[in-house]
């Protein structure tokens, strides 16, 4: 299977060579995690349903970025598959939100 040879395996660690790179990647992950935690404020506070959904979408993007960094740091290609799955499914929840929020209302439009 030639395609299989092109794709990196789990045990292959060709992506990382020097420890200083690992430290740099770790720092970047920390920064991204910090932005995630700060963004939680918007989900908690709202005020509207659209704000919350927007913030959740944003988290999806940040989570994908963290996964990419993790894949680099651990040198495991299949983590990119996890990131790819998240990326492909990122739209499902927002479509479900808009569809289920129904015409003309967030929640509690009474």
């Amino acid at each position, binding site marked *: 299977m030639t395609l299989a040879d092109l794709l990196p395996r789990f045990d292959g660690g060709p992506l990382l060579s020097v420890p200083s790179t690992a430290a740099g990647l770790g720092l970047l992950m920390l920064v991204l995690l910090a932005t995630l935690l700060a963004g*939680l404020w918007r989900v908690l506070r709202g005020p509207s349903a659209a704000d919350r959904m927007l913030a959740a979408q944003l988290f999806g993007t940040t*989570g994908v970025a963290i996964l990419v960094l993790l894949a680099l740091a651990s040198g495991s290609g299949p983590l990119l598959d996890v990131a790819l799955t998240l990326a492909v*499914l990122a739209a499902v929840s927002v479509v479900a939100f808009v569809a289920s929020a129904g015409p003309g209302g967030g929640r509690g439009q009474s």
Partner: protein
Amino acid sequence: MDPMVIFDAGLALALVALSWAVLASADRFASVVLFIVLGLMVALAWVRLGAPDVALAEAAIGAGVTGALLLATLRHLRGQPEAPPSPAPVRWAVGGMVAAVTAALAAVVVALVAAPRPEGLAGAVADNLAMSGVEHPVTAVLLNFRAHDTLMEVVVLLVAVVVVWAIDRGLAPAHAPQGPLVDLGPVQDGFARLALPAAVLLGAYLLWAGAHAPGGAFQGGAVLAAVGILAILAGRWRPEPRHRAWARAAFGLGATVFVLVALGVGLGPRVAYEYPLTLAKPLILTIEAAVTLSIAATLAALFFGREPAGLTVPNTVPNTVPSTARGGRP
């Protein structure tokens, strides 16, 4: 590895805080959105713990299916008032019990962490991996070493869809809307045209990758189910009564193939699921393909949430009429 310790601690704190927020939030919609975010963070934590397969399953099922399922249910609960909390004695008693259990478990966790590393079953799996027919240990466990578990899991899915279809039969008019829920507009249409084939490809790729890397029937099936959910949401596909026969066939396919393979192997000198070495990989891939289709169909049906029956409602409940077509869409 200092940054990673801080990262782990921050992520763990976020997990606990998010769980609390999901459970304590006064707003149902907020707690569902927080729950979706929680699923994402859990997947990150599982990656950190070296479990990419589990992270993939959680990302596919949590991000795609569960979130859509919860959001769709939320729509039915709109306007329902919150119930009063449980009486205080109940809360105190349960709180005490939970605290005791948690304290005991915490002692166990701390003691285990201090103890020397256990051996685990990884060695046993690795020793027998060559005989399993696949190269990825998790797939080997799921479809060879512990195949009975997986068969039961497929049966659980089957039971779930049977129950869900049974729940909505009978008294009240069906609770799901007809047609596209809202007009999602041309952008969504174009997106669906682009995204649906891409997601089908990704699902097939995950199924194939499961033989040698994280992936497999559940993850691939969940991605395919997300395709179905998107198609239903966008109004590109609407389950109708005449689809029921196909749907039933798809629900049962995985369990049927699974059982047939077990019988076929078991009729010979071997026990069930003790595949002959030369046939192991084709048999496993056959089972996985069937199970993937079943999981995809089942999860999509669970999202749709009811049997696609006609709208003729038995005349047992007064003052309700079946919903007729309503065009008043802003």
